[in-house]
């Protein structure tokens, strides 16, 4: 019976092929912008400025990518890639560390002002950087942190989401473990290092994937605080490669840079797909 129902509900011959056909069509449509960017990064400038440009890759791959990486337009793209890497890893690691610590304090201790601090962290959920850019910019400028990694990283590091995620997880750790640790006379930090952190490994990894992409894809904040091209991140630097006025943009180099800008996050997302999906679902809950 089950098999008959299966046949009825699920896949029947022609329907199955139609489903695949639609699916492939969907993937092609969604992929087209990326494909076109890749093609544009492998052809010459004259081939692009005389439309229509080809839809199949040319032979200028090395020329365009090495031009982008080692000379760029304002600054070599290699420099921007390095800045983006520092920023993304700094934000991800920083957020994870301060969130682990504060979630541990909130879950495993009773202390004066606990609920005050809890609500204070909770409120930061509501304040995306886009909403308070001018005053935050003034604070960072006041600290002399313009054009610095700390200026890129610190204002984006406080995250209620990560703290709540860890708090939720810590609450599911059996009380017996803490009990046993206390009976054995283990100090809280020992319990934290030996039990809590190792148990949180998967959560940490999943969160890292999400936060890395969040950090890598930042645009407005680096745009405001990095006036020195040497400190530009790649995602905001692409826009700076467009000439002002009527000059024609160097499309092959710009498109090579766009491809370079998406490679690290794509590797992270596709390579750690399971962790990524888990992190996505967890952090939105």
């Amino acid at each position, binding site marked *: 019976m089950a098999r008959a*129902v299966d046949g*009825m509900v699920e*896949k029947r011959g022609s*329907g*199955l092929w139609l*489903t*695949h056909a639609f*699916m492939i069509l*969907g993937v092609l449509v*969604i992929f087209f*912008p*990326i494909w076109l960017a890749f093609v*544009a990064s492998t052809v010459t400038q004259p081939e692009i400025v005389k*439309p229509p*440009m080809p839809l199949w890759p040319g032979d200028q791959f090395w020329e365009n990518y090495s031009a982008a990486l080692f000379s760029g337009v304002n600054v070599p793209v290699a420099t921007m890639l390095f800045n983006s890497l520092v920023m993304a890893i700094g934000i991800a690691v920083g957020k994870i*560390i*301060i969130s682990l*610590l*504060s979630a541990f*304090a909130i879950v495993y201790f009773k202390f004066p002002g606990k609920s005050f*601090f809890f609500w204070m*962290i909770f*409120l*930061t959920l*509501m304040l995306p950087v*886009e*909403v308070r*850019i*001018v*005053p*935050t910019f*003034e*604070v*960072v400028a006041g600290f002399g942190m313009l054009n610095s990694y700390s200026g890129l990283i610190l*204002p984006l590091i*406080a995250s209620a989401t990560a*703290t709540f995620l860890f708090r939720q997880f810590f609450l599911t750790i059996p*009380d017996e473990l803490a009990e046993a640790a*206390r009976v054995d006379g283990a100090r*809280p930090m020992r319990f934290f290092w030996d039990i809590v952190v190792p148990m949180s490994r998967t959560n940490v990894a999943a969160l890292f994937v999400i936060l890395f*992409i969040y950090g890598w*894809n930042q*645009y*407005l904040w680096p745009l405001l605080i990095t006036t020195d091209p040497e400190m530009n991140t790649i*995602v905001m630097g*692409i*826009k700076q490669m467009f000439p002002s006025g009527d000059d024609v943009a160097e*499309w092959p180099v*710009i*498109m090579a840079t*766009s491809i370079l*800008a*998406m490679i690290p996050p*794509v590797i*992270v*997302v*596709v390579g750690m*797909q399971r962790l990524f*999906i888990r992190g*996505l679902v967890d952090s939105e809950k």
Partner: protein
Amino acid sequence: MEKRVTFRGWMLPLLLIAPQVVISAVFFFYPAGQAIWQSLFIPDPFGLSSQFVGMGNFEFLLGDKFYRAAFLTTAIFSILVTLCSMIPALFLAVLADRLIKGSGVYRTLLIWPYAVAPAVAGVLWLFMFNTRVGVISWYLGHLGYDWNHVLNGGEAMGLVVVASAWGRISYNFLFFFAALQAVPKSVIEAAAIDGAHFWRRFWTIVLPLLSPTTFFLLVVNIVYAFFETFGVIHTITGGGPQQSTTILVYKVFSDGFVGQDLGSSSAQSVILLFVVGLLTIIQFKYIEKRVHY
């Protein structure tokens, strides 16, 4: 919910929570307080002194036709982005759910755009529709349609909507797909035995069961369209032509940094704070409900 077993001492927990509290205070609460404070003043053109105007900045904003236009633009923009990202995502998720084999491959391919930054997505779409070199605008031209998003506000809006919705399709697809996989197969089979066809099953069983996910995605996508699409608009249109793609967040930026009108920009930040607060409350109300679902 509280732990039964807790450790003693209050110095250590305060020390542990200190980094997050200090960073939140310095980079969140102080700037937010500043925004509220500055919104009550109008600085003179040299930034040397400022005059207290109370609610003056807000009164001016609410009467300002450009600001009201930005509100309307934001509403249209976020509704369109939400629809254009959710409907294709649901369609693809329904297709993927029908496949036993191969859905993993499609999923891997479909999540790519999520990793592409909004600003980079903006550059990719700008390239396709560029008035001089764009492939799609060139073919449109040959079909007799003269595409020019630099001059035509409606076309500019269409382009930023599609570029913003593109990466979100991946995101929505993942959530819809997970929700579809969780629909009990026995219910579907029972309906099939009763002779309900695919579309009938979809409308009467699957879609209602997806409603918690759909509502969640509605809120999340609206928040995304409000606050995270700055990069798309800045790279493609810069808010133009004639402010036709200036959404609220973009206006905070352009009035505050380009126009140097700090009082007005701060007042706009405060208004946005209320909008975020409202959306967050809606989101949490819903999450409480979902637990009981």
